[in-house]
């Protein structure tokens, strides 16, 4: 019998009304990637509104930068995006070099590519592992940390630190790579490449993973650009924009002579440089799955770039780049430079009045903009989708709060 009447007992049974409820998620929730607090307005399982509250890690690094010389500020950039500290050092160093009109030696350029791309691999590995954690699977995290550990070992060998490196400085790097480093690095890359298939099996193509991420948190390209989203979040929405190719000359000249293709879906497929699993039918361009997938492909891209860099570095002549003086006088002027850090475009703005200490320092954080879109993405989704959406943005609170 067709149930058409409201008095039908089977319908009344499901007529449950709930009140709107405000739920606090964080600031210590494990899947909010640090101290992010989300206030959810929920109606049962449906979230009607999300409001992110940030600032729990605010140290006003910009104010500190007004009291230190550029080289002294390097350790503070480490502590912004602490999962990709090398790339933060690089962004700030290039900004200072732009102001100084400093010409970097050839060898230092390739050294920086090696370090920056290794940093990208390490960062994306954590991003991948932590995303697994967000969705309730623990093992990818352990696998990711097993590989990341080896990168940290390599970094430790190069500069002595494992998390906050302060290795790349204005003028070059604090020291050259030690003997035998390149061979160890090469061996690591050799070993990492086949392992990526494991990650694809664990997450990318996993049926549950696809169910949790495909067609969830869909962000159209226009919205991504409007909110200033950058990095894998922007490319996951199908925007062909990567600063390593499209950025300012000061930054792109670092990648002169390198062959790489921007990881973005074009005409329904990704660059076919390497074998990769097919895009599942459920996935929609701009959803959580695509954002994650762009990161996975960028790991392969970074391996390729590192290999090219190792080859170029070992044949390059000259110096690895001496750091500038600790109290180097800065010329008058102001510069702004953005670099492609693993999480997006990291920009630094420096205003100098001719002293050795900058007058004003500003850090444009990529995660800050990427996070600002959460309120839009999480409208009318399920509570269980919130960690999936926030995790897919791959945020680091140290960088948002600065």
């Amino acid at each position, binding site marked *: 019998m067709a149930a058409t009447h409201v008095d039908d007992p089977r319908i009344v049974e499901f007529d449950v009304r709930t009140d709107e409820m405000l739920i606090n998620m964080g600031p210590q929730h494990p899947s909010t990637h640090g101290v992010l607090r989300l206030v959810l307005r929920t109606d049962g399982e449906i979230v009607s509104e999300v409001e992110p509250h940030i600032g729990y890690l605010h140290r006003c690094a910009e104010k500190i930068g007004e009291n230190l010389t550029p080289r002294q500020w390097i350790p503070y950039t480490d502590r912004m995006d602490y999962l990709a500290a090398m790339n933060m050092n690089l962004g700030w160093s290039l900004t200072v070099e732009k102001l100084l009109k400093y010409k970097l030696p050839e060898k230092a350029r390739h050294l920086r590519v090696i370090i920056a791309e290794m940093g990208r691999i390490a960062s994306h590995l954590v991003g991948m592992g932590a995303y697994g954690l967000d969705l309730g699977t623990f093992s990818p995290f352990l696998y990711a940390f097993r590989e990341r550990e080896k990168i940290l070992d390599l970094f430790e060998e190069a500069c002595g630190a494992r998390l906050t490196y302060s290795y790349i400085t204005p003028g070059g790097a604090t020291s050259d790579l030690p003997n035998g480093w390149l061979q160890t690095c090469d061996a690591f890359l050799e070993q990492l490449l086949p392992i990526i298939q494991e990650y694809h099996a664990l997450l990318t193509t996993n049926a549950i993973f696809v169910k949790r991420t495909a067609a969830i948190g869909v962000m159209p390209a226009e919205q991504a650009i409007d*909110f*200033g989203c950058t990095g894998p979040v922007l490319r996951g929405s199908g925007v062909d924009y990567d600063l390593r190719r499209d950025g300012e000359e000061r930054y792109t000249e670092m990648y002169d002579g390198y062959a790489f293709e921007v990881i973005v879906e074009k005409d329904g497929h990704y660059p076919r440089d390497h074998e990769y699993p097919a895009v599942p039918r459920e996935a929609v361009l701009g959803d959580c799955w695509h954002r994650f997938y762009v990161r996975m492909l960028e790991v392969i891209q970074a391996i390729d770039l590192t290999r090219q860099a190792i080859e170029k570095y070992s044949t390059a002549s000259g110096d690895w780049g001496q750091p500038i003086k600790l109290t180097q006088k800065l010329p008058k002027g102001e510069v702004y430079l953005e670099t492609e850090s693993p999480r997006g475009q990291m*920009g630094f703005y420096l*205003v100098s009045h001719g002293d050795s200490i900058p007058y004003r320092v500003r850090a444009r954080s990529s995660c800050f*903009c990427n996070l600002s879109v959460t309120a839009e993405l999480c409208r009318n989704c399920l509570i269980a989708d919130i960690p999936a959406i926030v995790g897919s943005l791959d945020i680091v609170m140290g960088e948002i709060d600065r």
Partner: protein
Amino acid sequence: MTGQDFLATLKKQFGDKIAGANFEAIDPWVEITPDGIVEVCCFLRDDPNFRFNMLNCISGVDFFEPDAKKAAKKDWAPHTEVVYHLSSTIKKHTLVLKVILPRWKDDSPGTLPEVPSVAGVWSTADWHEREVFDLSGVLFTGHPDMRRILCPEDWQGHPLRKDYEFPQEYHGIRGR
């Protein structure tokens, strides 16, 4: 398009709302008057020649020297700048816009200077303007939600202003 051509196009369109420009700087910039900023931004975003569809960053810079002796030697008068960094994902070019404001509105200390919000032009501006308000003390009129973003809501003062004094204590926590 060279800098001068670009400036001429803007000047033709907006007249004296374009207050000045500097194309010798490392990053060339154009100065806009506060009342023209929204119009100019809309134009730059939508014009097929420019297509600045992405707002990268808004920064507030406070120009002030508390020491009167040192201030006399400076080649600038105290003021506050709001700097907009734009870029285009289509044309792959960048631009810097500046709005120069007095440090205090109507020169009455304690009243924050005002500039119209561009949150309606680019959504990025929403959080960035809140940050500039929070740290540099510039009010963005017409902003949908002008609150502090990084500092607590009951925080006093704007830390990136050069005359900011760090509080002695905050809710029983010693400041220094």
